[in-house]
């Protein structure tokens, strides 16, 4: 464990200097598993994935494998995917439907709400009395949802999801609650491995518009988007969360256009009537991260959710989905799906370059000399304003220009505070 003092030296929010060490050091990483992933609200799935009782998916919270399942009573459960007897994964599938899970090692069976239902030959084997009530699958201390997005938290002392999201909730509403019926995920998930630290991806999505014209400059070259102007924003609503984009919506362009763009504009007009003129400026709400590792893109062409699962200091597993409004017409869903696959995911003409960059950043920062240096997050220092000053309407949070690292600074401040704190109460 690095001490409070050691941690505090790693992030200087006044200058925007963040020690490279935090992206490569194994001790820092172990501490993250405990103090970040062991305490924060982590995205584990979306309710639209659970249409029927018994529907489940498997995913991760930090490095811990979990099952997310709708039980017989229709309730969503998050369960550690590890038998209480000898730890075996009780479910070895990506998704499916199950009334119960029978462990393949000794046959203990667990209900789809996690209770230990039966152990084989219980009477003769455990006549001393096994306390089945105490041996259900482990589960996070808290589970909650927002617009169908399911979050879970191992820490009973963590603030509620609502409090944790804070002012970010206001903006997530704009992303996930635009049409009657809300959102749903298109089937299938892109899963792949990048040889890079998870924070590189989280920080990229929280506030890094600045990489887009370079990393993704080939998009202009092939005519699927126009060159980038300077007219956008980064909003930091607190608690390490953040989002940003071009005013008017990310990713306008000509090539390979789909009817989704005019459609979303219509949707936005309706929303604007309800909420005010800021809507047309910041909806769709662009790129963003809910601290620590849930990110999204919400553009004129598609929406995506993604989680950056940590797999060691130098490795992450990306899980990424395409998100649509449930009420979107089928042919538009199909168009969005195709657009998404073409531009994002491992083969996406945008996303290919992120993999190249994040893996090489991590490699180049790992040497003895390199890791003594800092990464530089000084962009936009001293030019942060209240969002309401710029956009009116009492909008919450701080705002910076589109080319600003305000959100990354807020993210690493939060990271530092959590890493240094012994408990949530210590943090406050």
């Amino acid at each position: 464990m690095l001490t409070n003092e050691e941690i505090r030296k790693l992030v200087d929010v006044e200058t925007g200097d963040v020690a490279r060490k935090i992206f490569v050091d194994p001790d820092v990483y172990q501490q993250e598993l405990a103090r970040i992933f062991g305490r924060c609200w982590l995205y584990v799935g979306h309710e639209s994935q659970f249409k029927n009782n018994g529907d489940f998916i498997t995913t991760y919270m930090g490095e811990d494998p979990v099952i997310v399942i709708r039980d017989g009573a229709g309730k969503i459960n998050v369960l550690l995917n590890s038998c209480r007897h000898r730890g075996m994964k009780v479910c070895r599938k990506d998704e499916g439907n199950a009334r119960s899970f029978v462990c393949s090692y000794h046959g203990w069976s667990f209900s789809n709400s996690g209770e230990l239902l039966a152990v084989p030959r219980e009477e003769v084997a455990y006549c001393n009395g096994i306390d089945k009530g105490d041996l259900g699958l482990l589960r996070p201390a808290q589970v909650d949802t927002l617009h169908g997005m399911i979050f879970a938290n191992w820490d009973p002392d963590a603030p509620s999801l609502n409090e944790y999201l804070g002012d970010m909730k206001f903006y997530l509403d704009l992303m996930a609650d635009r049409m009657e019926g809300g959102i749903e995920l298109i089937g299938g998930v892109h899963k792949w491995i990048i040889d890079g630290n998870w924070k590189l991806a989280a920080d990229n999505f929280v506030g890094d518009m600045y990489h887009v014209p370079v990393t993704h400059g080939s998009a202009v070259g092939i005519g699927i988007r126009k060159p980038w102007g300077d007219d956008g924003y980064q909003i930091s609503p607190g608690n390490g969360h953040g989002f940003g984009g071009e005013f008017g919506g990310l990713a306008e362009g000509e090539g390979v256009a789909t009817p989704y763009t005019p459609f979303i504009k219509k949707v936005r007009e309706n929303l604007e009537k309800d909420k005010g003129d800021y809507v047309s400026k910041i909806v769709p709400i662009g790129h963003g991260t809910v601290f620590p590792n849930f990110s999204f893109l919400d553009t004129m062409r598609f929406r995506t959710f993604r989680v950056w699962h940590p797999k060691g200091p130098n490795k992450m597993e990306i899980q990424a989905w395409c998100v649509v409004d449930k009420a979107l017409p089928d042919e538009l869903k199909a168009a969005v799906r195709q657009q998404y696959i073409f531009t994002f995911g491992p083969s996406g003409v945008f996303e290919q370059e992120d993999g190249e960059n994040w893996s090489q950043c991590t490699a180049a920062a790992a040497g003895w000399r390199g890791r003594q240096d800092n990464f530089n997050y000084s962009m936009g220092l001293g030019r942060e304003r209240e969002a309401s000053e710029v956009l009116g309407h009492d909008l919450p949070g701080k705002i910076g220009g589109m080319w600003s690292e305000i959100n990354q600074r807020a993210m690493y401040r939060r990271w530092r505070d959590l890493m240094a704190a012994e408990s949530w109460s210590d943090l406050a």
Partner: protein
Amino acid sequence: MEYAFVRGIEQFLYREARLLDEGKFQEWLDLFTDDVRYWMPMKTTRDATSSAETTDKELAFFDDRKPTLSLRVKRLTTGMAFAEDPPSRTRRIISNIEIDALSDKEVEVYSNFLVYRTRLESVEDTYVGHRKDVLKEVDGSWKIAQRKMIIEQNVLASNNLSVFF
């Protein structure tokens, strides 16, 4: 099946693979019909007895028609496709070719592949899978009218998919 016919198809696939390995992407693109679908669904672990593939309403690793496939190729010439600049080194082992003649001018071809790629100094990926192509004879030459590909992985073990299959 006639020897010359079979060999023509096999050599077509080898030549195609070599065009990719030698970085002749435009020539490679010309081997596809204008209405081609270039589709790589994903293998999921959903069943006890089979490895389900994602359907065509679900996500895929690729799902291109000629226009987007052409853009992928064009992209490599923009000078900003950093995932392939400098380019990967690739080599494709194409094997187990099976041919179903649908007609004189149209065949369905199964093949297995091992695509080896390294890039920069030591990044190394091996993609193993299979393909089901529909080839059509157009003006005396074969063209690929459909290609469905599968990589036999669940979590893709690569930084990206910046090469073709």
